[in-house]
């Protein structure tokens, strides 16, 4: 990493760590008496140590079009929260029903996503949506191995492909 990238990485990490320290220690430090210099200096020293040791792990590189991706990410989170509620009602129905209608199978499919963030988001979403859990991910060809609990959720992933299209739209078809 050249000097400019290192400076940006250390600045972002230091600001994030200091804000977290302020929020997490506020109810002990701020409420008895307002902040004075001794307490704030403790926070600055802790944030500096963490920044010097591990700033390369938290902000490895500056991607492109970060603002556009962040703005498209927020409706995706709301859609996913609704899918999580549906998934848990489905699993609760299968557990409580006296005959337990399950019929597990293992399926495999390919996608067009290649970057780290997009593959991780898709694997997390597959684990949180009704009836499917990711087993392995291959990053070079975008292959997913998925274990499904019945025929209907497996069809929603193989035939409809709604989730892959949404993730490809959020990360701008990577």
């Amino acid at each position, binding site marked *: 990493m050249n000097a400019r990238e290192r400076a940006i990485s250390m600045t972002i990490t230091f600001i994030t760590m200091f804000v977290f320290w302020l*929020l*997490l220690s*506020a*109810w002990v430090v*701020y*409420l008895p008496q307002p902040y004075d210099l001794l307490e704030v200096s403790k926070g600055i020293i802790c944030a500096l140590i963490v920044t010097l040791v591990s700033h390369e792990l938290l902000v490895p590189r500056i991607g492109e079009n970060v603002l556009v991706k962040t703005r498209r990410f927020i409706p995706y989170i709301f859609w996913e929260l609704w899918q*999580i*509620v549906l*998934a*848990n009602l489905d*699993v*609760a129905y299968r*557990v*409580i029903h006296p005959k*337990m209608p*399950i*019929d*597990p*199978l*293992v399926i495999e499919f390919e996608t067009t996503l290649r970057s780290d963030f997009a593959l991780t988001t898709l*694997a*997390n979403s597959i*684990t*949180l949506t009704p*009836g499917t*859990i*990711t*087993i*392995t991910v291959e990053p070079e060809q975008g292959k997913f*191995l998925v*274990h499904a*609990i019945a025929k209907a959720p497996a069809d929603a992933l193989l035939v409809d492909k709604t989730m892959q299209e949404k993730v490809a739209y959020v990360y701008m078809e990577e």
Partner: protein
Amino acid sequence: MLVIDVIATVLMGVGAFFMITGAVGLLRFPDFYTRLHATGKCDTLGEVLIIAGCMVYEGFSFITIKLLLLMVFIFIANPVGTHAIMKAAYLTGVKPWKKGDKRM
């Protein structure tokens, strides 16, 4: 009983119901992979609902921010742990269960 108390009680009650469903699924399902289905999904939502009930009960203060941080962390960490266990089991050779097999 104020309105905030009623909302917090309803949220925590639904969360506790989902947690009990997850634990019963751990006992009832016939195979390792299906048991992970039950706990990986129901545990996460039950915990998020119980912590949301505690947040509503508290109001606006610094403790609410800390509970929000705990909720986001559990939301991201539980599926990652489930996926790690499932990948280790598949690559070591645990066989999935088909309909009509013996229960194991």
